C-alpha cells in the first residue's frame, strides 16, 4: 500500500467554493436557448424586459447583439420554462454539494 497516497486521499476535502463556481458556469450554459432565429439566456434580465413590454411583439437584441422580432408572450413562456427547469436542476445539484465532505 502506498501510505503517502492514502494520507493524501484522507486529507483531501471537497472544494465547496470551487464547486459553486463550476455549477454557476454549467448552468449559465444550460440557460441559453434558441427562439425566433435568435439565441437567448433565460434569467431575471430577459424576463424583466419581457414583462414590461406592453405590445404583442417587439424587436430585442439577442446574445449576439442581433435584432430579432419576437412574439413577446411566446418568448416569455419559453424563457420562464427554461429558467424554472434549470434553476430547479441547479438547486438539486447545489444541495447535493452539502452532502460531500
Amino acid at each position, binding site marked *: 500500500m502506498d501510505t503517502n497516497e492514502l494520507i*493524501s486521499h484522507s*486529507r*483531501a*476535502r*471537497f*472544494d465547496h*467554493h*470551487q*464547486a459553486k*463556481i*463550476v455549477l454557476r*458556469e*454549467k448552468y*449559465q*450554459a*444550460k440557460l*441559453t*436557448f*434558441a427562439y425566433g*432565429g*435568435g*439565441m437567448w*439566456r433565460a434569467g431575471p434580465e430577459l424576463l424583466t424586459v419581457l414583462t414590461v413590454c406592453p405590445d404583442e411583439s417587439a424587436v430585442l437584441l439577442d*446574445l*449576439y447583439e*442581433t435584432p430579432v422580432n419576437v412574439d413577446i408572450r411566446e418568448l416569455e413562456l419559453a424563457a420562464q420554462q427554461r429558467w424554472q427547469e434549470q434553476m430547479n436542476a441547479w438547486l438539486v*445539484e447545489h444541495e447535493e454539494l452539502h452532502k*460531500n465532505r
Partner: protein
Amino acid sequence: MKQGVLLFAFNNEQIDYLAMAAWSARNIRRHLDLPTCVVTDVADIPVTYQFDQVVTVDLQPTEQTRYFKDYKSVGTWHNKNRSNAYELSPWDHTLVLDVDFVVASDQLKRLFNIDQDFLAHRWAYDIAGHQAFQDNNWFGTYRMPMSWATIMCFRRSKKAELIFNTMQMIRDNWTHYRQLYQVSEHTFRNDYALSIAMNVVDGHTLSTPSIPWQLASVTPETKLTQVDPDTYKIEYESSDSKPKWLLLKQDFHAMGKRALGEIVANPC
C-alpha cells in the same frame, strides 16, 4: 440539413487517439444523437469502434513535436489536418470536436440552433480554479485573443470556407505568422491558426461571434477519474496548496491525455 460530428484521430508514440475517438463517438451518440465521422490514417479500424463514417487520409509528414506534461515526454503531434475539416466533412452543419473533449450531456446540441456560420469558444477556464490558466485565453506578445479550436461548429457557407482556407494559409506559412503575432512557441497550434483566421475574415475587428458559454477545462496537472458513465472526479491542489476534489457531471475538455486514455481503456 444534415448534421454530424467530425473527429480527427492520428495516433502517436504514446496516445491512442483513435480509441479516444471511438469512446467519444459512443458518448456523442448517447447524448447528442448525431452521427460521427472520424478522419484518421489508420487503415484497419477495429470492428468494435462504431463510427458512422471513416475518412482515411495519408498522414502528412511532420517534425512537429509537443511536450506532453502528463507523460513527461515529447511526442509527435499530428495536428495539421484540422483545417481541412471543411472539405472532409460529409455534412452541411458540422461540429468538429477534439477527441479529448468529454461529452457528458446534450449541451452541444444548442450549437445547431444558433444562427451563425461559424462558432468556437472565446473563453476557457480551469475547473480547478487556478487563475494562471486565464493567460491561455490570449497568446503572443500583443495578447491576441484566443479562439479555441477544441469545438468548432460550422455551416457550409462562404464564411466558414474562408476561415478554413485562411487557417490552411496560416498553417502553411506558420513561421511568418508566428513572427507577425510574436508567438514564442515554435509549435503550430490550431487554436492560434483559428484565432488569427477568424479575426482576418472578420476584418480585424476582434468582434467574432463565439459560443455563448465558456469551455470547461481539466488541466494535465489535475487527476481525473471516472465515477460512472457521466460523472468524473477531479483531484487537485488548491491555490493554498490543500488537496481538494470535485465531482463533474458536465462536458469538459480533458487536457491530460494520460488520464483520459486510462478512462477510455477501462470505462465504467
